[in-house]
């Protein structure tokens, strides 16, 4: 699971039986109380129900492998939609893909001139002033001049949701396998250990065995080993993204998670084009989560690095990531803001060209395009040939 905090938005991604939506009210309250974002659902901030009014909300997920084991509002998509509809006005819920197969759910609110305020819990509805606030003060309005166009802000999110990972290949995400790889990487230290083991090291001191243990067992140390060994560190290579920073963790006995912060490339003015201008000063990320056990294997990859940046097209990123995890089937979603009015990336993975082999080794089964008010969504579903 991961969380990304930007000045203007928060992304929270959690797996397993986590109860993500149960944190939403607290999130909205923190945004109002700690960060000073405007609230409209109660008259005063000291009211414990005060919650910031979001500019817009996205909530999405793939269908669960074991839905019956979920808790709280996550027991069904209908429950989740009800939970969100209770909190926001004007949300829209979609199911994209096969109902009797792999599919993807999406809940989205649209920005409007009245920021969609969250509602207070029903029990308070009678006692407090109307939950639907009066029109937001125009002053506030003027501080959102771009509320509709998003002109100056490019937003694109690619997600790859992979199931039925190749069993042999998935072994690299087990601690025992990674420890062996780590141990191979530190032969010199190994010898030193031998010397120290018999207590006769160069300076007669006993080396702290924990150093080696740490390097071959500690979650973050092994996470870095796995990132390098599986090829993840090369998705956005340090040669092109020198300031990128990967934070990876290998779970015990198995499982892997990684976040990467990828500062937008900064170019000399002469080279800046409109697209780059829009991303200057913006940080991008990718996040990966892997559950390698054969009976429930899954891996996800998500990034907001714009396709085509630094010469790597979306389809190349997809091929690289799919090559790492070798899934039996996978869903791709590409969500792109329409700021310029053009669908900037009309055919991110060769879907429109009817090429059955849009991604090497895989057959495209579904391609679905949704055009929302200010975002375009391309959904693709692929199966191994």
């Amino acid at each position: 699971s991961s969380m990304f905090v930007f000045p203007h938005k928060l992304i929270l991604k959690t797996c397993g039986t986590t109860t993500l939506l149960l944190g939403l009210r607290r999130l909205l309250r923190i945004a109002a109380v700690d960060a000073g974002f405007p609230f409209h659902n109660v008259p005063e901030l000291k009211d414990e129900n005060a919650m910031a009014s979001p500019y817009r909300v996205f909530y999405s997920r793939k269908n669960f492998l074991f839905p019956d084991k979920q808790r709280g509002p996550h027991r069904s998509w209908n429950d989740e939609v009800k939970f969100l509809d209770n909190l926001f006005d004007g949300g829209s819920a979609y199911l994209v893909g096969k109902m009797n197969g792999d599919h993807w759910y999406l809940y989205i609110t649209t920005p409007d001139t009245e920021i969609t305020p969250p509602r207070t819990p029903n029990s308070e509805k009678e006692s407090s002033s109307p939950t639907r606030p009066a029109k937001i003060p125009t002053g506030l309005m003027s501080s959102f001049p771009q509320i509709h166009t998003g002109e100056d802000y490019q937003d694109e999110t690619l997600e790859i949701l992979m199931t039925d990972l190749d069993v042999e290949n998935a072994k690299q995400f087990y601690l025992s396998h990674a420890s062996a790889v780590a141990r191979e990487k530190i032969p010199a230290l190994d010898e030193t250990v031998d010397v120290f083991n018999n207590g006769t090291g160069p300076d007669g001191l006993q080396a702290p065995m924990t150093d080696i243990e740490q390097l071959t067992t500690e979650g973050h140390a092994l996470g870095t080993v796995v990132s390098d060994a599986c090829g993840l560190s090369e998705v956005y290579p340090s040669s092109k993204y020198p300031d990128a920073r990967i934070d990876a963790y290998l779970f015990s006995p198995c499982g892997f998670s990684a976040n990467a912060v990828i500062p937008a490339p900064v170019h000399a003015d002469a080279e800046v084009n409109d697209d780059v201008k829009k991303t200057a000063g913006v940080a991008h990320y990718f996040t990966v989560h892997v559950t390698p056990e054969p009976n429930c294997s899954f891996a996800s990859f998500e990034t907001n690095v714009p396709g085509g940046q630094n010469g790597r097209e979306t389809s190349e990123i997809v091929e690289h990531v799919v090559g790492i995890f070798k899934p039996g089937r996978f869903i791709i979603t590409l969500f792109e803001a329409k700021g310029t009015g053009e669908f900037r990336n009309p055919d991110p993975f060769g879907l429109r060209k009817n090429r059955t082999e849009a991604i090497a080794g895989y057959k495209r089964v579904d391609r679905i395009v949704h055009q929302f008010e200010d975002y375009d969504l391309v959904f693709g579903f692929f199966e191994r040939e």
Partner: protein
Amino acid sequence: STSTSEGAPLLTINHDVAADLDSSNAFEGPEKLLEVWFAPSPSALPAGANENGLLCVPSKTWEEMLQLVHCQVLSVVSSEHMDAYLLSE
């Protein structure tokens, strides 16, 4: 905490949580993904909001929220424009 160069992202590890994490019971990979925007862009924060927006919120405060979600913070990469939290689940 480690950082490679001036201004580069800074990694902070929460060793208490990271040390004895066990994932034997993990079985559901597909995640729930929530994005909540409070402004159209970092340069369009509304009047009254902290100049750093959500980045001004201390980690501890987020950790309390994450308890409701049943997650803990393993580590954080902090950078000028974003903080990236790696979580336990």
